[in-house]
């Protein structure tokens, strides 16, 4: 979680300085969901993300260097400078891709789960999407089909209460999302997405069910963006583009998933403050190396424009 947070926060200044040109959706505040779920996955299991997927990539085991290089449009980026922040991928660790068409990757995860069922290879697939994606029809088609075919698929709805800038009750008739799984006979639950232990335990049970061939599970994880929807203005709280109430932001800041987990570990004596500090030092050094790697990397050359249109 700390690696994701430090990585995301390291991007704020470059975004504000306009050094990062591509749209960046920071995952700060939502780390417990990616970490709690991915901690239950094997390397060979599949994850599909969305527009806000740096956290999914890192939690699944993606390296920091290629992520930062991609965000800066470099040739050494995880998508070789063709994708930017919204297309982070590393198939070798099961991070199968991410895309900003809202709901667009849900059916891809459905298909990866279908592939596993056909091959009987015991892999599971995870689809991470936001509350905004509940407005897309493909989600409901996918719920039905996944349940009908008992596919090993975990739907993870990261409900951060806002669909871009629109509060959830302005785009949905109610704010209880997980119940949309029920008409399709899918086991569902709503959890505190800022409590990494709760996420981990829920995901573990859910993924066990998927692996047993009992069909998909739907988890709604309540959370909150500690940054805005997308930078630069919006990534700073209190500017005109972030219309969320100051009090609400303050309340959710108190529920920061990393601080909560740290408190838990410290009070139960499982870790010491100096161990946390050492961890942060190590992570910061890794991030510094990633920026150095990015700085030393070339941009794709103009004559390479059409590489990768076809295989």
């Amino acid at each position, binding site marked *: 979680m700390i690696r994701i947070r430090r990585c995301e926060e390291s991007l704020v200044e470059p975004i504000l300085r306009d050094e990062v040109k591509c749209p960046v959706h920071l995952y700060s505040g939502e780390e417990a969901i990616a970490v709690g779920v991915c901690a239950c996955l094997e390397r060979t299991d*599949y994850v*599909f993300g969305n527009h806000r997927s740096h956290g999914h990539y890192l939690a699944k085991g993606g390296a920091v260097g290629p992520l930062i290089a991609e965000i800066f449009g470099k040739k050494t*980026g*995880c*998508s*070789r*400078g*063709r*994708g930017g922040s919204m*297309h982070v*991928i*590393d*198939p070798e660790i099961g991070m*199968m*891709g991410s*895309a900003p*068409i809202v709901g*667009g*990757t*849900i*059916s*891809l*995860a*459905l*298909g*990866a*789960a*279908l*592939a*596993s*069922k*056909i*091959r009987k290879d015991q892999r599971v*697939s995870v689809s991470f999407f936001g509350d905004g994606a509940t407005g897309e*029809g*493909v989600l409901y*088609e*996918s719920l*039905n*089909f996944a349940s*009908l*075919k008992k596919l090993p698929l975990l739907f993870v709805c990261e409900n951060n209460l806002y669909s871009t800038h629109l509060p959830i009750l302005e785009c949905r008739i109610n704010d209880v999302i997980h119940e949309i799984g029920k008409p399709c006979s899918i086991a569902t639950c709503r959890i505190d997405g800022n409590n990494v232990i709760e996420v981990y335990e829920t995901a573990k049970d859910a993924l066990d069910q998927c692996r047993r061939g009992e069909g998909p599970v739907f988890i709604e994880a309540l959370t909150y963006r500690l940054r805005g929807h997308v930078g630069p203005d919006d990534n700073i709280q209190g500017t005109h583009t972030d219309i969320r109430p100051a009090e609400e932001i303050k309340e959710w800041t108190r529920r920061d998933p990393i601080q909560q987990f740290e408190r838990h570990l410290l009070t139960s004596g499982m870790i010491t403050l100096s161990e946390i500090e050492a961890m942060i030092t190590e992570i910061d050094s890794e991030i510094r190396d990633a920026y150095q790697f990015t700085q030393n990397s070339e941009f794709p050359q103009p004559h390479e424009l059409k*590489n*990768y*249109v*076809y*295989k």
Partner: protein
Amino acid sequence: MSTNKRTLNYALAINEALHQMMEMDDSVFLIGQGVKSPWYVGNTARGLLQRFGPDRVIDTPVSENAVTGAAVGAAIAGMKAVVIHPRMDFMMYAMDPIINEAANWHYMNGGRASVPVVFWGVINRGGEQAAQHSQAIHAFFSHVPGLKVVMPATPSDAKGLMIAAIQDPDPVVFVDDRWLHYNEESVPEDAYAVPIGQGAIRREGEDVTVVGLSYLLPEAMRAADELKKEGISAEVIDLRTVKPLDKNLILQSLYKTGRLVVADVGWKSYGVSGEITAMVAEEAFRMLKAPVVRVALPDCPAPASQSLEAVYYPRCRQIIDAVLKIV
């Protein structure tokens, strides 16, 4: 290619391609509406369910977006997916997984993942089915970088291009036409691929080049027969692949004839016939001895009534008239 041939119709030639590819490669599977139902997809899926079982021959709810996306996702995860849309009008519901996801996937991920999927759409025209059961939307797909689009006109090519489409590492849109399903010819028995991106000269000629696509290829052949009686020698090209376009084959023929008629099964404006005409204008303007003439659907939705269908769909007659304008 085996010399051992027997007669097969177009639909059964596709069926044979599917049988052979599913037999040879466990990662090939067929998904879409009606694969269990003979009346829905003609004979193209005959015997597949019995032979390969419901895990690899998957009939689906009418959920084109999710089902097509599932085919794309399965392909990203290492399968070779064939997703059928028995009426290609319904592919409009699946434009997101086809275009936003599959077509862009390899590029926007810097070549880290490819999408070996076949989007199989059937043009279902005629029979008073009206505007939503008749559309030929191959030009939409041909517009998009990252997709390949094939439209076989003969049974042998239907088999060979289905095999090539399944073997291809990129997303391929395979478009057939119900009007072709019962055409028969001798088809090789072995599993052969017809290369994507190569047209074929079906008939050699001197006076005019007629490029025909899909159901208009047999019509172009009949037109050439008729024109011969009037002393006009037409060279007939079967386009076979719409994208990538076999420019050289067209240009070489045009070098010989200097006159071009393009017969496309889609609408006239902004379509395949316009693309070929523009390509010729850019690359071979000086070869042209006369203006290019296009035969295509009028810019009008497909009608129901047979009296209107009769004027809506071009046939041999319109191709002959087009040739006579410039020869």
